[in-house]
């Protein structure tokens, strides 16, 4: 029997995040739908969840801002209790080849993708440790383990997430808190729009991009009570790309 609390998915107004938060809501979690700027998308996701008799709260906040992170958690705690499931999904990209990547492109991607995940995790662990229960799932990427020219900053942030996942998992495992990552390959969302899909798909044994629901299913498993002995690992969801 899991303790009472909430699930928070950062960046869940669209794409992977929206699919993930819908999946967690259908598992009975009261959920926090976090967005930075896409209020319309977030409101739409909430309507879908409530239409399916789930509970959802709109929590605006920029995950790369420490004060916003605190505000998001405080708001969810007030409404649903401690955050016991955290999916660090919020991510951005700002591509360029390394010799030409600007400081702001580097800083911004690391700030959202990696530091934001750290801050949210630090904050969530307070409630999880005390409850002796927690599920943290970090949305990494195959780009964190395989080269993808033009994405040195994105790759660094995702590889960083994987290392972060392992160490935090080892720190808190004895408290019933698991920390894992999923590493999606090519999935059709706004984040991958404009990428040369044809060239990439030729390298995917499944010969197609994945869907947000296929990634959400993996997050859903790792966030489940049943996955209680899985921790510190990365579940790759890439149609065989890195096999």
């Amino acid at each position, binding site marked *: 029997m899991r303790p009472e609390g909430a699930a928070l998915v950062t960046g869940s107004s669209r794409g992977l995040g929206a699919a993930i938060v819908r999946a967690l809501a259908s598992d009975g979690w009261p959920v926090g739908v976090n967005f930075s700027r896409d209020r319309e998308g977030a409101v739409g996701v909430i309507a879908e969840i409530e239409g399916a008799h789930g509970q959802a709260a709109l929590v605006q906040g920029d995950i790369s801002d420490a004060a916003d992170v605190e505000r998001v958690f405080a708001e969810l705690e007030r409404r649903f209790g401690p955050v016991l499931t955290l999916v660090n999904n919020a991510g951005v990209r700002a591509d360029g080849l390394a010799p030409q990547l600007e400081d702001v492109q580097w800083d911004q991607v690391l700030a959202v993708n990696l530091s934001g995940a750290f801050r949210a995790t630090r904050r969530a662990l*307070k409630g999880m*440790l*005390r409850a002796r229960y927690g599920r943290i799932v970090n949305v990494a990427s195959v780009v964190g383990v395989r080269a993808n020219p033009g994405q040195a900053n994105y790759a660094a942030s995702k590889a960083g997430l994987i290392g972060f996942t392992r160490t935090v998992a080892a*720190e808190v495992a*004895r408290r019933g808190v698991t920390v894992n990552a999923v590493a999606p390959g090519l999935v059709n969302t706004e984040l991958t729009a404009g990428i040369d899909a044809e060239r990439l798909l030729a390298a995917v044994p499944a010969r197609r991009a994945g869907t947000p629901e296929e990634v959400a299913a993996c997050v859903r498993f790792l966030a489940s009570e049943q996955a209680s002995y899985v921790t510190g690992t990365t579940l790759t969801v890439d149609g065989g790309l890195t096999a």
Partner: protein
Amino acid sequence: MQATATQESVEAAIFRELARLGPEPEYVKRDITFDALGIDSLDLVEVAQLVEEEFGVLLKGEDMEKLQTVGDAIDLVVARAAS
């Protein structure tokens, strides 16, 4: 509502938290080490969290490393609250 940090109130709060974390209450005294109580660094994180919530005193990682006995923790919280 945050409480005033006196020797008595801090000792009571920390003893209570330690009892919740595992050690038998009869072993919890000011001059016993956390090691002897089987209290590890993750337990101390929870003690620090309680201290922050009850007394508004922030204990950082580097503070925690220096704490040997239960009395060290009580004294540090009282000193910080006064400063």
